[in-house]
């Protein structure tokens, strides 16, 4: 970044449409990292105005006031007050306010004015305010507030045009800010001070002649059903169930196409490269390994799409509302629901999302149970085994048996998390009543643009992982599985003689009691880095074990033939707990500030996985033997 580029910071209440506006200003040129020393997500982007001026844009976490009460709010507050290490304070603050909710959102503007930076107010969602008949003239509001005001629509393509024009026209203001006012003291934050600011807001609103917003909005009518004590939970259950059915069934054609593509490339390499080490590296190492992970991209995209839509539409906090009492039963609050649901995609963003939980104890428990949520990295394993062992039958009402099994696996993970939270409650001691204070934002149609940007970021992360970590591990595993070459007289598959084969047969002693063969045992080793790697590893192991047979992308029939049903069920049970994900453990270490908690999680989950797999294996054997 150039030191000549001014930095503008977007500040606003949560749910003011700040992130949509940020996406609009910066497009896909965003850099997501963490603030130094804390795990709050730092979103930075670049804006080039029509006049060719370049600016850095920072999307600060949402805050209700400059008196912080969560780690997120603390970052915003410290940044604005110039107390955040490693950060240069902004040259200009863009205060984003929800035009339909000015009486609350303007209070932050009043507080920001006191701090003394150059300030411009973005009257966001101005289209919605106009439709509801509560719009105010930007010029009148600017006059009453004594701060420039522009109107924006975060969800429309040209919605930030007036803000960008303003930035262009007032670029000199942005630049002079280099020598800035000494930031004021943080706000006191008591009721009287807040009420004082509110009086100022009411004065401003009276001056612009704004009417009170209608108390009955379309959102309320939806809430009448969605938050209903009986219909609400029903709608939630159906939504989640349909989501998992769709993830399983909807992704299938795309996955089949990808599988065919991988097989085609393998066939092409087989035809054009002479048999030998190089061909084996491409076909057995890279394609059978990394290729069998890539085919799960459609499922992961679909799952993320569902979660993003639920989040963007405003439904997620409603789900948290409905589940608050239930979560309260195990000592958590509805606020833990959102991080836990994100953990279904991946525990890492889920654990990072716990920063929005103000209570440290609730936050810790949520972090500790998040790895029990079925993350998308388990999907490849589940899909492989369900596809191979569970008949594709339709039960009543068009519900597929395979989808049902998948749902059960998710449910077992969820149930275990509740049991764990319940037990942890006693370990962490008695506590005071914890407030919920959760905003339920108005419903709105998810914006395709934001959905696209969100999905693209996830796809990028996944593809980068396949291209780096997973690929490297696959090549390493291929190497270990190929050397040393067996002596001439050896009759079995070459891999049994290799380093990997020997390690596998050693590990098989540990895992034999729960029904794992040596191929599975060895696949679990690279699976430590990332769960989905285990599938790729199985691909490589079987590819090298099979003599002359082409396995790339066709693992399903092979495991269906090679494993017994109890072994498959046991591996499914193992993966409900599966402690092997070093990235998750690393994030837990960073978030909890020590090795104690990640080691506790790894140990407990390993134990749970071993016991669950063992019980499943022996019960299944007894059952099949009896039947």
């Amino acid at each position, binding site marked *: 970044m150039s030191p000549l580029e001014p930095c503008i910071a977007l500040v606003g209440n949560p749910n003011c449409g700040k992130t949509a506006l940020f996406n609009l200003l910066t497009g896909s040129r965003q850099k997501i990292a963490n603030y130094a020393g804390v795990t709050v997500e730092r979103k930075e982007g670049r804006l080039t105005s029509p006049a060719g001026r370049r600016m850095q844009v920072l999307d600060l976490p949402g805050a209700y006031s400059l008196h912080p009460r969560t780690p997120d709010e603390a970052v915003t507050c410290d940044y604005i007050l110039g107390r955040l290490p490693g950060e240069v304070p902004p040259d200009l603050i863009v205060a984003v306010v929800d035009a339909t909710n000015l009486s609350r959102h303007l209070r932050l503007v009043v507080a920001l004015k006191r701090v003394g930076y150059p300030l411009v107010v973005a009257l966001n969602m101005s289209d919605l305010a106009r439709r509801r008949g509560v719009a105010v003239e930007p010029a009148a509001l600017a006059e009453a507030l004594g701060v420039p005001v522009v109107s924006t629509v975060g969800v429309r393509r040209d919605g930030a045009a007036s803000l960008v024009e303003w930035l262009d026209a007032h670029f000199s203001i942005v630049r002079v800010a280099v020598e800035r006012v000494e930031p004021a003291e943080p706000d006191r934050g008591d*009721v009287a001070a807040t*009420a004082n600011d509110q009086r100022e807001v009411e004065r401003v609103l009276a001056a612009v002649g704004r009417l009170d*917003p209608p108390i009955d909005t379309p959102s309320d009518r939806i809430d*009448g059903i969605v*938050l209903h004590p009986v219909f609400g939970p029903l709608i939630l259950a159906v939504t989640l169930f349909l989501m998992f059915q769709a993830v399983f069934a909807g992704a299938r054609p795309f996955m089949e196409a990808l599988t065919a593509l991988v097989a085609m490339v393998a066939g092409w390499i087989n035809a054009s490269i002479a048999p030998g080490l190089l061909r084996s590296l491409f076909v057995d190492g890279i394609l059978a390994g990394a290729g069998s992970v890539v085919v799960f991209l459609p499922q992961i995209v679909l799952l993320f799409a569902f979660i993003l839509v639920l989040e963007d539409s405003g439904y997620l906090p409603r789900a948290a509302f409905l589940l608050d*009492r239930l979560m309260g039963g195990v000592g958590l609050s*509805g606020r833990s629901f959102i991080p836990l649901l994100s953990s279904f995609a991946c525990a890492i963003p889920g654990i990072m999302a716990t920063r929005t939980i103000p209570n440290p104890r609730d936050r810790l428990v949520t972090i500790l149970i998040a790895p029990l949520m079925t993350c998308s990295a388990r999907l490849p394993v589940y899909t492989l085994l369900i596809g191979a062992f569970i008949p594709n039958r339709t039960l009543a009402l068009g519900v597929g048996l395979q989808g049902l099994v998948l749902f059960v696996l998710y449910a077992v993970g969820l149930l275990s998390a509740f049991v764990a939270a319940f037990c942890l409650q006693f370990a962490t001691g008695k506590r005071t009543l914890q407030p919920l204070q959760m*905003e339920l934002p108005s419903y709105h149609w998810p914006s395709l643009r934001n959905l696209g940007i969100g999905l693209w970021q996830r796809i990028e992360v996944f593809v980068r992982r396949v291209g780096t970590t997973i690929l490297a591990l696959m090549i390493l595993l291929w190497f270990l599985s190929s050397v040393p070459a067996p002596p001439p007289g050896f009759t079995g598959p070459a891999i049994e003689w290799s380093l990997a084969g020997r390690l596998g047969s050693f590990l098989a002693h540990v895992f034999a009691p729960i029904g794992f063969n040596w191929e599975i045992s060895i696949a679990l080793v690279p699976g430590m880095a990332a769960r989905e790697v285990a599938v790729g590893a199985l691909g490589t192991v079987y590819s090298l074990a099979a003599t002359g047979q082409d396995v790339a992308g066709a693992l399903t029939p092979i495991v269906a033939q090679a494993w017994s049903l109890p072994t498959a069920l046991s591996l499914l049970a193992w993966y409900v707990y599966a402690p092997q994900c070093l990235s998750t453990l690393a994030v837990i270490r960073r978030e909890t500030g020590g090795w104690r908690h990640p080691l506790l999680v790894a140990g407990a989950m390993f134990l749970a996985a071993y016991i669950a797999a063992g019980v499943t294996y022996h019960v299944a054997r007894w059952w099949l033997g009896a039947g």
Partner: protein
Amino acid sequence: MEAPSTLRPAARLTLTELPLLGEGLILGLSVQSDRVSADLPERLAELGFLPGARVRVLARALFGDPIAVRLGSGTFALRRFEADCITVQVLAPPVCGAT
């Protein structure tokens, strides 16, 4: 404190006791129990639960906890003990025709 069944136009209730879809005017904030953190009123104030603001109970979850409260044009979920901290004056009885 009167029970909801004997509502008079100027009855003082806590937000928890406000009937579903009934409207109230916030009179004050106070901490009712020593199990509640002392800065709760401050936080509620920052969300906009200030004396003089109008509120309406939009929904109650199963077993009446938590409740969804409309405040201005925003909606917040509060647990019962939080709503207990907010004293309101009843403005209007529940809207007829709404469920």
